[in-house]
């Protein structure tokens, strides 16, 4: 079997004195959609923030495409091919949609490739093209989510980390966003998705991990987890 694209091995992460992740291990294979589900405060975002370099693991290792990336700073991680869509979108509200997308391609110099990816982003999110000269702060929540995703894609990541893309969106919009995540994955980007909306996440993922207070308590094929009695009770509302 091929080496996993991303391999997290037994990491411990602290927020000051709080022990947020307690010996977590997980793997993402190339081409997969893997989801990390769990309640608020379980450590889902912390896991993503550690992968993208915003937090440093105290112990354990993170390997991406055979290279150790634990403790590498965030702006270096992007260059290695990991891009994160942060929780709460975090678009640059005072800048235009176009400037936000430009910043997504900050680490790149291949103008032709950037142009091509911009076209691709506008195909995925036609509304962004309509509003490209508008300042990002004037967009609706859904549009901001699209912008944050488009911005992350502009670095042409091999692995896309998505943190709660459904947060605060209407059900119809959530469906649209999730369809697009599947499209992004089909066009060759591996996806690690963190969600509280476990139903939606499990419906599009290949595999899933369940996180509870800093520990992984369950893992397996997404469809198996969706069928499991424990998961149904805890996360899928019966």
């Amino acid at each position, binding site marked *: 079997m091929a080496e996993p694209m991303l391999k997290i091995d037994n990491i411990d992460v602290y927020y000051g004195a709080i022990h947020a992740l307690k010996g977590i291990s997980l793997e993402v294979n190339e081409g997969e959609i893997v989801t990390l589900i769990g309640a608020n405060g379980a450590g889902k975002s912390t896991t993503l923030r550690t992968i*993208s*370099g*915003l937090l440093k693991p105290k112990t354990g290792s993170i390997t991406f495409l055979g290279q150790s990336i634990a403790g590498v*700073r*965030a*702006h270096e991680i*992007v*260059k290695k091919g990991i*891009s*994160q869509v*942060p929780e709460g979108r*975090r678009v*640059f*509200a*005072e*800048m235009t949609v176009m*400037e936000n997308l*430009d*910043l*997504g391609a*900050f*680490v790149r110099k291949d103008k032709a490739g950037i142009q091509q990816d911009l076209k691709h982003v506008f195909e995925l999110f036609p509304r962004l093209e309509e509003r490209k000269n508008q300042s990002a702060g004037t967009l609706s929540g859904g549009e901001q989510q699209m912008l944050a995703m488009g*911005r992350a894609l502009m*670095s042409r990541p091999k692995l896309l980390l998505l943190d709660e893309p459904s947060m605060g969106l209407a059900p119809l919009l959530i469906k649209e966003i999730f369809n697009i995540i599947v499209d992004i994955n089909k066009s060759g980007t591996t996806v690690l998705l963190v969600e509280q909306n476990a139903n939606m996440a499990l419906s599009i993922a290949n595999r899933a991990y369940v996180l509870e207070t800093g520990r992984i308590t369950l893992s397996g094929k997404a469809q198996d987890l969706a069928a499991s009695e424990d998961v149904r009770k805890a996360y899928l509302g019966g």
Partner: protein
Amino acid sequence: MRPLTIWKELSMEVWHQVLQQLINGISLGSIYALIALGYTMIYGIIKLINFAHGDIYMVGAYIGFFAITQAHLSVVPALLISLVVTGFLGMLVERLAYKPLRHAPRISVLITAIGVSFFLEYTTMYFVSPTPRTFPAMFGDVAVTVGGIVINGQQMLILGITAVLMVILTYIVQKTKTGKAMRAASFDTETAELMGINSDRIISITFGIGSALAAVAGVLVGIYYNSIDPLMGIMPGLKAFVAAVLGGIGILPGAVVGGLILGVVEALVSGFISSTFRDAAAFAILILVLLVRPAGIFGKNTKEKV
């Protein structure tokens, strides 16, 4: 005899004086604006009121002074040398004094800034002595008179150089990749990092640019008022801080407008009331702003978005 004519002549005289003070005020205000820009840029990116900024301006004035008197350079090369050297000094200060405190509480960094301020003042004093130095007279004989209003050579120099720097700065901030990175990092440093922006590098560049602008202000003040000394940065540093707060701290056009307003108010107070009240007027403005519109002229009332 004819009270109406006398009144007319009197009001002409007053009007004339107001215009003259406006010219003086805009010149002084340009200096404040140049210093305030650095304050506001640095605040924007690391939320630090850099109390050493006025002293950076002082060092810039000395470098310009030595470039003119010792190296016998003319104004523009002297300005350029001061701009470059002081820019690097600003980056060095950030690297040595502030970078190690990146994750420290803000009060620690603030106290460090005060320490850096004293360090720059008294190190300079040690090397150049506390005695004020006299800048050689320059452009003294150049003056333009427009409708009875005199604009002297130094004022033209200040206005010209400031205008050029504003254009360059606007270009850098709005159009270049580094400028976009600066805006992104000052809006949200963490997300900027996620874009691949090295925030340490951007912070360093911001200190460099801010210090370079202060250096130019220092040299221009030396030429305008002829005299420089190691403690000359204290008052203009505080005034530029007032200007930055008046315009809305963190906002670049705010610093410029705040600086100009402050300069004009000071000139009018000096001209029509007494120059003794000049500084009082500046700080009265600060108090008024803090009472009436704490976010400043261009500031938005930032409420947490849910």
